[in-house]
């Protein structure tokens, strides 16, 4: 008897894990967005109120939070393009696994560029 992880389109492997990661990053980004609109809205209160809250984004701990945020956004963006290609491109479904690895490579390249830049901004240099 075939194992449950074979013979279906999505169970296990690249298809399922890209779907799980897309959900997890999507929910995370959504909750950040709610907070981010609220903190930006403080520009209508006073310059001091806005600067005080945006100042908390500049601490070393938050710098790593922003790296996590960018990591989630970049993955969600590239994997979203992959989903569009799976749905609208003729060769999409056949190449969905290959495209998942391309997404991961592009994601890694973006993070290799952003992480040093963010650490330079935060710790000087």
């Amino acid at each position: 008897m075939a194992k449950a992880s074979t013979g279906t389109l999505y169970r296990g492997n690249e298809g399922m894990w890209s779907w799980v990661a897309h959900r997890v990053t999507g929910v995370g980004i959504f909750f950040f967005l709610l907070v981010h609109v609220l903190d930006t809205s403080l520009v209508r209160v006073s310059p001091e109120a806005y600067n005080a809250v945006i100042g908390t984004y500049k601490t070393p701990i938050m710098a790593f939070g922003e790296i996590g945020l960018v990591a989630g956004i970049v993955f969600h963006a590239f994997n979203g393009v992959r989903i569009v290609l799976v749905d609208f491109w003729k060769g999409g479904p056949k190449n969905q696994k290959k495209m998942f690895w391309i997404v991961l490579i592009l994601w890694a390249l973006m993070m290799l560029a952003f992480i040093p830049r963010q650490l330079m901004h935060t710790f000087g240099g």
Partner: protein
Amino acid sequence: MATPTIPAPRAEYDRHKTTRSQFELFAWLFMRLSGVVLVILIFGHLFVNLWSGSGVHQLDFGFVGGKWANPFWQIWDLVMLWLAMLHGTNGMRTIISDYTEKPGTRVALQLTLYIASGIVVVLGTLVVFTFNPCPTGADPSLLASFCKA
């Protein structure tokens, strides 16, 4: 003698006379269309605010004032706000539908979601349109450079 016309076979026949709402079709399409636009808008937002200049350390009231004094960035941020909130709210709606087992739980969570999203969209839209980069009486050192003129 007139040429006899033969109607095309099955021309009028529609096997699927669907009476269902097409809402889910539009929601599916919206996720893909808004997603592609959001990639451009958010990557641009991150490049300007987190990558260029001194990154997160340049962000303050004067920076926002400088950006929103330009209608280009007002429209950019407004479109980004609306598309991102609709995209995110629809994604959360889907996830709630997937994991709730009782209809009451689903309705309660989705209602909470819609109220939260509505407040954030209305608040964000008002802020973009009513923002004053040079509020009277504010400390000039905290404002954009053009306020001193």
